[in-house]
């Protein structure tokens, strides 16, 4: 091979030769960081600055979740690893709350910042960790003191979401069993709305369904049915239920399927759509079916 001279039109700057290697190295670093983060389960919650929290809460219409903790506190570290390091829970917290960490520095610095002290007094914090969920302008709050285990905290978060969202709680919808609905199908002229849901996936039901209008549309216009994925887990007793699910042949979850009452063509919304997309999907179906 003939060496290329520097002034040749084929000469390539050194940077151009190095950059692709750097790009690949960066990608490798990203992969390594992702696997390290998921292995380490470090804090995945996107904490918001204490001073900006109220403003962001008002703007986004989300409740604030205060995590009162301290560096020296063992249970606080456990809460961080078990709950804030859990991808699903962290995502849920990031999406549904304005998360704020309030760290006590009395042992380290001898005193706390004024705003930290004020908050601790306001919510009467006497032990760590304490989770406080509040809505700006409302006196009602939800509190969890201490850290027992992940499941308890998960329940606390779920209950708090239900409390803070009121009409937008996806757990407000009474998702029925397909067998029960088919038995009583002659009583309803509403279309079936079948939710194919896989609890093992990291996708949150709040991302999928937590919208006031969506919950209202489902309650008022559809017969909501939940089918667990994998389908085998449902243990259908009626042949009609099995036939219907086989006919729909939904292979990916989450999925929403509208089955019209007159035996018309089913409508599908498959994949990780947002609650806004799902609302549009249902509303469009209703508009068309009325026409």
């Amino acid at each position, binding site marked *: 091979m003939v060496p*290329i001279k520097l002034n040749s*039109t*084929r*000469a*390539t*700057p050194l940077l*151009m*030769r190095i*950059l*692709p290697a*750097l*790009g*690949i190295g*960066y*990608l*490798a*670093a*990203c*992969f390594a*960081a*992702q696997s390290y*983060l998921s292995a380490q389960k470090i804090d995945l919650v*996107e904490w918001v600055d204490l001073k900006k929290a109220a403003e962001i809460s008002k703007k986004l219409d989300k409740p604030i979740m205060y995590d009162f903790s301290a560096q020296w506190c063992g249970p606080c570290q456990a809460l961080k690893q078990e709950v804030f390091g859990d991808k699903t829970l962290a995502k849920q917290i990031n999406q549904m709350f304005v998360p704020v960490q309030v760290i006590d520095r009395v042992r380290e610095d001898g005193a706390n910042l004024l705003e930290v002290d004020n908050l601790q007094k306001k919510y009467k914090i006497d032990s760590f960790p304490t989770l406080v969920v509040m809505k700006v302008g409302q006196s009602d709050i939800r509190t969890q003191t201490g850290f027992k285990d992940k499941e308890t905290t998960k329940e606390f978060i779920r209950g708090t979401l239900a409390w803070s969202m009121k009409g937008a709680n996806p757990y407000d919808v009474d998702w029925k069993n397909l067998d029960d609905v088919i038995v009583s199908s002659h009583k309803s002229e509403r279309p079936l709305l079948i939710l194919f849901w896989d609890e093992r996936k990291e996708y949150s039901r709040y991302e999928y369904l937590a919208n006031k209008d969506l919950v209202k549309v489902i309650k008022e216009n559809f017969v909501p049915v939940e089918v667990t994925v994998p389908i085998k887990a449902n243990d259908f007793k009626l042949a009609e239920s099995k036939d219907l699910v086989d006919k729909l*042949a939904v*292979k*990916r979850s989450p999925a929403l399927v509208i089955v019209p009452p007159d035996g018309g063509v089913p409508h599908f919304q498959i994949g990780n759509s947002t609650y806004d997309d799902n609302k*549009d999907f249902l509303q469009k179906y209703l*508009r068309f079916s009325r026409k």
Partner: protein
Amino acid sequence: MNKSIALMTIKQLWNRPVRLVLLAGFVGFPLLIDVMNRQMGFKDHTSSAMVIINTSMFVLIIGAGIIGQDISDGILPLIFSRPIKRWQYILTKWLAVAFMASIVAFLNLFIHLLFAHGFTFELVKGIMPFDLAQIVLLAMGTTSVMLLLSSLLPGAADVGVILLVCAACFVITILQHFFHVPGMEDTAMNVFAILFPSFDLGDIHSLRQLLSIEIGRYFAVVLVCLSGSVLLVNEKEFSYGSN
């Protein structure tokens, strides 16, 4: 950046009416859907995200045969008879096509928002700086992939290959729906992410998120494509004697 090559690339677009017609079609189609929605009494508009995704189509139209066409038309031996470095030619082509595609995409977004909101404050609010940056990112990413393919293939075959891969991805998705193969769910998505590299700027809230796979993949694909196309063009013989 070489000014003459940049100007030549821009002129090449205007000299091919088919490309202009296609561009007009891709700008006009979402608007047509919006008009139909309005006439049917729906208030829905094509979302800005959908309009931004169209940037890739603009790159495909404007950048079709970005290098291959120059080779097929015999322009490249003329260019390289002057003391222009090949990497300069490639980087200029890359920036010129990405720039043009971004401008068309900006205009498309503006027209779309104008149609949706009229001359109101909503129009100004709708133009998010993030969206504009997102357009540029997508345009630069897709153009780099086209450069690599175009340095390998003659004429506008680069677009053909991209469309073929897209069709294959579509078939894979359909097959996956019927014959579910575990672990293959995201194959099509990953191929698309390489063909049309981009990442969501809205997802970056902290320095830690700079180590996301999407960002790493974007820079790796763009840099490898640019460097790969320089390498491939350097290997080609363009002198008149070579024929």
